């Protein structure tokens, strides 16, 4: 029973369902692990020990009574501290929200709980999910950044404190920390997961993300929380796919389109070589690989993305910022200050350019199923003053298309490296199927030396 904390989502759910393991035992094991490592990693804002154990006991009782149980019954989870939890403080890593206690749950909180997941607590976020670093440390080396903004979620899952956590992504805030910490990070199509009750950075760019340790676990969590939500104006009405089935049908090698140009030019030598070797391994395993050029509109993607993010962050924070400016960290403060002076016509031009990029994306998939890039330009920087570089994730967040990162190995200094897979909008099943195939072909699972 001492290794219960190392089990993934699918393993916990299956063992609990078969009554081979009690949810109370799983939660206790995760809490023990969490409490042992938290002084070093600082991944949690709050841990609801009492509430988690009470929920685990209710689960146990329901199972004993033969009640119908959800797909995530007994699975401990963490929520990034920008996600509303009724009655539980949601401070968003901010002095401005330091005492904010939501009166209702975010839709994702409700859906996780309806599926039987057990909330262990709230994970550390950078201030309002932006770029000022959080206190969280990377489990692979505490002198390296864990990335951000979903710092605590990534570190907690990588350190085997919990099998799954939710984060968010406006630029690269789920995939980047996932890659830096050696785990799987999934950002689905914009609007696939409700943002209701999630403190925004930028309404048109924000996504809820999933941090886990396997593709199958990503599919299970997505299955539980995806779907239309009347409370979220951006929520998609299209039917939710069968993601759990998709990962079981991953026998056919995918056609992979490798993006070089920008992604080769901005990656360090080690990352370039590692990515080339990873793609070569996938080709040897049967994947068809070809290069795919970037569309013309790619040239303005990062500039347009930054304009949208700055203006929308400024719009959300404007009132609070005017009266509590000194309470904001330097990077977020700068973001808001810039957003307040960008002309509306330039914001709208950036929105139009975003749409142009979205319209050009389908042609990139003409001859391939999935696009691949390194997940990040470098491994996690040896610098706690940064959350790293979001340039490899931001374009796809900007377009709203689904992406996933898989751990692929370690750098020379022992930090994780990852591969980013990209699919067209609403093709989560295709993405998960390809990711599962790549995961099996590469056979890489990383566990930090803790």
């Amino acid at each position: 029973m001492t290794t219960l904390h190392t089990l993934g989502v699918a393993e916990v759910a299956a063992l609990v369902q078969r009554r081979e393991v009690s949810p109370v035992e799983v939660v206790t094991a995760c809490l023990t692990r969490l409490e042992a490592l938290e002084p070093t990693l600082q991944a949690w804002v709050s841990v609801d020990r009492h509430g988690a154990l009470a929920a685990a006991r209710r689960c146990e009782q329901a199972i004993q009574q033969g009640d119908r149980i959800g797909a995530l019954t007994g699975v401990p989870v963490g929520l990034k501290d920008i996600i509303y939890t009724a009655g539980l403080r949601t401070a968003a890593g901010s002095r401005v929200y330091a005492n904010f206690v939501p009166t209702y749950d975010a839709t994702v909180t409700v859906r996780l709980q309806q599926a039987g997941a057990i909330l262990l607590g709230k994970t550390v976020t950078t201030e309002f999910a932006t770029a000022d670093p959080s206190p969280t440390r990377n489990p692979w080396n505490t002198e390296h950044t864990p990335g951000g903004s979903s710092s605590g979620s990534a570190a907690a899952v990588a350190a085997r404190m919990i099998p799954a956590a939710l984060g968010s992504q406006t630029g690269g805030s789920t995939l980047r920390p996932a890659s830096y910490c050696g785990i799987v990070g999934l950002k689905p199509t914009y609007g696939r997961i409700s943002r209701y009750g999630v403190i925004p950075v930028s309404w048109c760019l924000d996504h809820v993300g999933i941090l886990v340790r396997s593709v199958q676990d990503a599919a299970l969590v997505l299955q539980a929380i995806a779907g239309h939500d009347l409370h979220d104006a951006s929520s998609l009405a299209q039917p939710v796919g069968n993601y759990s089935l998709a990962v079981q049908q991953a026998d056919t090698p995918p056609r992979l389109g490798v993006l070089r140009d920008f992604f080769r030019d901005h990656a360090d030598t080690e990352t370039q070589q590692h990515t080339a070797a990873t793609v070569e391994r996938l080709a040897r395993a049967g994947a068809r690989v070809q290069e795919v050029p970037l569309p013309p509109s790619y040239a303005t993607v990062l500039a347009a993305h930054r304009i949208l993010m700055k203006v929308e962050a400024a719009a959300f924070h404007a009132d609070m910022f005017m009266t509590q400016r000194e309470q904001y960290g330097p990077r977020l403060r700068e973001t808001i200050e810039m957003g307040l002076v960008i002309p509306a016509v330039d914001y709208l031009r950036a929105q139009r350019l975003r749409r142009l990029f979205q319209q050009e994306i389908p042609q990139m998939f003409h001859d391939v199923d999935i696009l691949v890039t390194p997940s990040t330009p470098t491994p996690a920087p040896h610098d706690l003053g940064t959350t790293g570089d979001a340039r490899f994730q931001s374009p796809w967040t900007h377009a709203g298309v689904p992406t996933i990162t898989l751990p692929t190995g370690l750098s020379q200094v022992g930090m994780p490296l990852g591969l980013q897979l990209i699919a067209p909008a609403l093709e989560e099943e295709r993405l998960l199927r390809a990711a599962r195939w790549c995961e099996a072909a590469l056979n890489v699972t990383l566990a930090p030396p803790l």
Partner: protein
Amino acid sequence: MAGERITTDIFETLAAQARLLWGEADAERQRPALSQTAEEIAMVARTPVPADLEPKFFA
């Protein structure tokens, strides 16, 4: 756009706004960020957009 806007002109416009909002000293502190933002705006402004392409806020 009629008449290409150059980065220095955009920067001056942004800096003037910043001075109005926060005063001289604070606007001076913001100079590097204003300069970077001006470059981003210039890049977006000089890229042609089809006349009939409307913005779509929720993708």
